[in-house]
């Protein structure tokens, strides 16, 4: 009897297993997809007054420029719209937007009260028929309408991609004008998209390599004012500058802030030898980090401030090395053919961007912090000086064309190597430095 019962139970268990197996879902694996900009629709924000209508149109335009310019999104022209958004709170006709293959829809409203501007928006996942995130509102003065448009774009970008935006940021760079043999260089600052250019210095002396502080309120740069290259620090808000403490008869250059903004890394050339130093800004006290007979320059902190990547020719050709922030033994990380220089640690900490010269051409590339997975993103007659966007997704750099009429300009490229595009500047530009996101 017991044997019979156990056999029955086992049989039932087998039946259950068989039934479960029979009811298992179909399983497929998808490992091939497409990489194309995500189509979205951003109809003009609904204004609450005629005065707001102008801002509404401008904000929609800047928003579209930001998203489309990132290379990750594609705007669907308004002429293709089936339905119009006439009220911010009206229900969305998803079918109309599905019909034109809009995968994301941005609706918004703009209101103006005196000098005060208020922007509201919602982001919709059209095919899911649901809102992505919740509605958001920005308020400020009418003068800051561009920043509000950038804020909206950052929010949309962040909600769809899952990483922070970079539109509400600024770039310090060297504005170059005039012919190549009489080039006038001025330190300038602008919105990331080339708008709102402000000049911080005149063209009386050569300026090089501006670097934003982590908080975006100060800029370090190298100036030949006085004949020797010296490091200057400039307060962006008050446009006041001063020279960092330096020794006579030495050249200091290639400065960069530490992540906490308290220390400046720089190169100091003394007696024919160039080494790395760290200086406390407040006290002016310097610490020597390297003491090799070779040239060490272009240092850059890791985001956590624990390590430094720099360029050195101690092996015979310029290569990239990583060492502790307090100095000591350095580890070479670049082993490819050619010369490596101007390394910059990504704000996300996972990659290092660099300039590479190989076989007569220049490249902007990225590699992991151990030197693996090197990828070259660009190639031209002269590409150099990469700088990271605040979210570590885009690299801006200098591209100079060949010949006597050659001109330096700023370009940006996605770290995937796609979406290479020029940055609009009134004149030529070089040595860009991307600020963090503005607050």
């Amino acid at each position, binding site marked *: 009897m017991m044997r019979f019962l156990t056999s029955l139970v086992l049989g*039932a268990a087998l039946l259950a297993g068989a039934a479960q197996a029979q009811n298992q879902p179909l399983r497929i694996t998808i490992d091939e997809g497409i*990489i*194309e900009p995500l189509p979205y629709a951003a109809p003009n924000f609904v204004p609450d007054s005629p005065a707001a209508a102008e801002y509404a149109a401008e904000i929609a335009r800047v928003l579209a420029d930001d998203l489309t310019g990132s290379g990750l999104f594609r705007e669907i022209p308004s002429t293709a719209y089936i339905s119009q958004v006439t009220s911010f709170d009206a229900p969305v006709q998803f079918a109309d937007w599905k019909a034109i293959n809009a995968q994301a829809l941005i609706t918004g409203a703009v209101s103006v009260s005196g000098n005060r501007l208020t922007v509201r928006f919602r982001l919709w996942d059209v095919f899911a028929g649901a809102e992505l995130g919740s509605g958001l509102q920005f308020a400020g003065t009418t003068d800051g309408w561009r920043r509000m448009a950038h804020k909206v774009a950052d929010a949309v970008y962040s909600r*769809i991609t899952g990483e922070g935006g970079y539109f509400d940021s600024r770039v310090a760079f060297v504005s170059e004008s005039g012919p190549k043999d009489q080039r006038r260089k001025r330190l300038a600052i602008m919105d990331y998209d080339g708008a709102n250019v402000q000049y911080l210095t005149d063209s009386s002396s050569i300026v090089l390599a501006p670097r934003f502080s982590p908080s975006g309120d100060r800029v370090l740069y190298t100036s030949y004012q006085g004949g020797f290259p010296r490091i200057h620090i400039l307060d962006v808000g008050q446009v006041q500058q001063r020279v960092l403490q330096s020794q006579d008869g030495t050249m200091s250059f290639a400065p960069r802030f530490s992540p906490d903004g308290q220390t400046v890394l720089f190169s100091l050339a003394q007696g024919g030898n160039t080494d790395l130093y760290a200086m406390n800004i407040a006290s002016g006290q310097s610490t020597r980090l390297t003491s090799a007979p070779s040239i060490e320059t272009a240092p850059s902190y890791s985001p956590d401030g624990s390590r430094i990547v720099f360029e050195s020719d101690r092996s015979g050709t310029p290569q990239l090395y990583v060492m502790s922030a307090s100095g000591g033994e350095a580890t070479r990380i670049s082993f490819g053919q050619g010369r490596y220089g101007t390394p910059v640690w990504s704000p996300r900490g996972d990659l290092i961007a660099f300039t590479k010269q190989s076989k007569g051409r220049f490249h902007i590339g990225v590699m992991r912090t151990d030197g693996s997975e090197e990828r070259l993103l660009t190639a031209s007659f002269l590409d150099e000086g990469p700088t990271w966007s605040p979210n570590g997704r885009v690299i801006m750099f200098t591209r100079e064309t060949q010949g006597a009429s050659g001109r330096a300009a700023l370009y940006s490229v996605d770290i*995937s190597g796609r979406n290479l595009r020029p940055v609009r500047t009134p004149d030529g530009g070089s040595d860009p430095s991307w600020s963090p996101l503005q607050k």
Partner: protein
Amino acid sequence: MQTGTKISALAHVTLVAWAFLGGAFRSDPLPFEVQEVSVISAEEFAALSAPREAPEIIPQPVEPEQPTAPIEQPAPVEPAPEPEPEPVRPEPQPVARPEPEPAPQPVEPTPEPQVPSEAPSLERPEPETVLLPEPPGKRPKPRPVERVAPEPVAAPPPDARPDPVETPPVSAEQGAETPQPEQPATAPEEATDRIEPEADPTTEVAPSRSPRPKTRPQQPTQTAETKPAATPEAKPAAKPEANPAPASQAAETRSAVNDALAEALAATEEPAAAPAPTGPPLTSGEKDALRVAVSQCWNVGSLSSEALRTTVVVSVRMNADGTPDTGSIRMIESSGGSSGAAKQAYEAARRAIIRCGAKGYKLPSEKYDHWRDIEMTFNPERMRIK
């Protein structure tokens, strides 16, 4: 003297005879006593056995401490287990009762066809397997005949025997005696082929078990007829198996069978709505077509680099027309990234499923049960550096 000796001899003889006979008479009352003892012992054993159980029970509960009689009855713990089996019996009864209740309501007509459908299915395979060994069993007789058969004289008797077995050859045999050598020639081939299955009857057990799985698909087909809900499907499924079991088993086995089936069916209740195994599964080509269709809409261009390191598994229930049930799409699991990255990756996957499935994926409608529920794994590994 002679008379004296005779008298004395007679007296001695009589005395000796009396001594023997007298002892025999006295033995009669003794067996009566023995018989009484034996009769008493049988009754006493039963009586003794009862008091023996009582003392066993006594040591466990402390009777002296609880002198009161009412406590003594609950004190015996062994009677307690007896009531336990009693509730077990009522359990199968209620189980059996609900069975008939759902049965008459939705499926009474259907279970009846179920039983005949199962019964013939079981009987058919058995006769089939039996028929195969049987003919060889009859044919071995012709074998010895075959050995004799090569001789012309033995030929006529085999003619009579093949008649019942193979009627069509019999009609041809009547025509002429010459085909006789041909018959034995064919007979040994067939005989040898079927001699092997003779040893198979031991293996016949396997085919006799195989029809059981056949009955399982019949149950889902029956449930498919009564598609309305999952719970009614599960209960009727329990009956057909429970019925054959009690038919040959005691009522106690029903409880075990019902319990086991209840567990088995409980485990399958969730997916029970999918009567999957009705047809052949999707071919690799059909799966590839679905994979390609979804991948054409899987746009990873707007994903963060972290989301591009995140693999997500998304489940979706499909409508019969090939369109996805938008509300059923959900993320089962993710790996390789944070929850935020998994959310972005899942949303991209969801957009792909919905967008390319808006007009319905091209899937074979006759295999709907196989693709009603789909789990798609979106692995962006190969898309990372492109």
